[in-house]
């Protein structure tokens, strides 16, 4: 079975879950979020963009999601509590969020330091996963080459009126689509080549449903 689901019609699953979600325009993914089922309710947790805080609310958007097996149903409360803690300590005015790891090794809270990371919606999601798991979530070094298209980042900066050069330094060039596809894998850290293997199939899925 192909396991990407339209979040709005996910109603038959009994156990809690954390899923990785995308909003799409045609066959293009343009936003990412966590879609979470906890105690019969479905929530979305995401970072809408600079100037706005992290939102934890009942599912509103028309997302497509893939449930990640890296988080057990029994661990969903721990995941939500982590998101709430990041939300509490976030400083959205400057678009800065700590990376899920809330302290430096000396116990100083990272939100108190001014080495802010300018965040995108994907950056937020990736950082939560990084803070949650013992291992790195993605093999980040795989994404450091320039080969990746920066189209998504250009779009993002245009919509939010941001200076692309300021963002570029922090942006790991991971797209919302790549984040969604990472949900198919459980062996951490997930390598870029694994994600690329799955990409054509997922693209075809979105093309089919957008027609």
């Amino acid at each position, binding site marked *: 079975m192909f396991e990407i689901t339209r979040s709005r019609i996910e109603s038959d699953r009994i156990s809690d879950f954390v899923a990785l979600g995308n909003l799409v325009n045609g066959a293009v993914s343009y936003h990412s979020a966590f879609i979470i089922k906890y105690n019969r309710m479905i929530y979305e947790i995401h970072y809408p963009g600079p100037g706005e805080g992290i939102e934890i609310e*009942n599912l509103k958007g028309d997302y497509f999601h893939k449930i990640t097996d890296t988080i057990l149903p029994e661990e969903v409360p721990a995941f939500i509590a982590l998101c*709430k803690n990041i939300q*509490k300590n976030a400083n959205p005015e400057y678009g800065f969020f700590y990376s899920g790891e809330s302290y430096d090794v000396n*116990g100083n809270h990272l939100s108190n330091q001014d080495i802010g990371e300018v965040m995108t919606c994907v950056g937020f999601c990736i950082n939560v996963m990084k803070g949650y798991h013992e291992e790195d979530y993605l093999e980040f070094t795989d994404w450091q080459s320039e080969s990746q298209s920066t189209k998504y980042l250009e779009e993002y900066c245009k919509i939010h009126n941001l200076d692309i050069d300021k963002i570029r330094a922090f942006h790991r060039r991971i797209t919302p689509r790549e984040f969604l596809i990472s949900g198919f894998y459980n062996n951490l850290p997930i390598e870029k080549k694994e994600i690329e293997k799955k990409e054509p199939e997922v693209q075809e899925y979105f093309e089919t449903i957008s027609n």
Partner: protein
Amino acid sequence: MSNKLEIILSQANNQPVKLASMSSDALDSFLKVVSALKAITESTINKEELCFSIQEGSAMCAVEAPAQFMNSIYEEMDLAIQGKSDDKEITKYLRIIQEQIKKESFAYQFKYKENANTINIDKSLRNAKKITVKRKTREPYQYKLKILSGYLNQIGGQNPNYHFDYGLKDSITIDCSKHDAMNVINYLYQDVQALLLTKEWKIKDKKDDYIHKVILDKSLVPIFKEFITSYYKHEDLVEKLTILHDFVDEQFRLSNDSGFKFLKHLLIAFNDKNYHLSEIKTLLIISKPFKEKTEFKKLRDDLFLTYQNKKVNV
């Protein structure tokens, strides 16, 4: 895409019901049913997602909401009708509707509409036993953190433990590991404050069991007690874990030293397979930045081992 719940009162005392002219009895019954329907949906769905309507053509009340929310309510009501729901709100208000539907003087219909399907709930509700909340099969005990003080007057044994003596033959026994015993022995014949994991029995006259966690410095006791009280005040796990995060944040805000001191004790206090997996995981998340720090490494590795063993068994 939205689904609908509909309740229609068509007859009262063998007379057709019209919104334009209702008897006092019929109005009473209808109002009860309508407010129960409102309460059921509001227990699960945000108010802004709900749309209510009251219509003529008998007396009809309908509520619409997005399909996935409505579905989860319908499923819970279905469980309640089978006597299997543990949802206090839904069972309470469904019982009110059931009481009215069961009355022979009223003719009610209760429907769930999804897409083109209509499911009649009134018949199964009429035939069902009185709706009651299913008691969760609770264990006869629960585990809780507790701080107890006492005069330490005995320690040792094949299965190591130590005793707090309160005089008049009143004493408690606290289980500990050999390793703990070698540390606790330094406090022999002293008044000590101990952080314990208590197995609280709900059976009358059965004494609680105690597992040793940490001997606490007196100065930490009031702060720890306050944390424990607020932690166990909440039933919802996410709220509990939020309190845990906030507590550590607050200690680090006061001083790094205080943060480390409390976090170290928490790593020990929550290292037990009887905690929920999310409780153990939350402490691993909070302490992750310090995993290579010398004084934390062993404690955190031990907690991680408990986490992994528990994960295999969930």
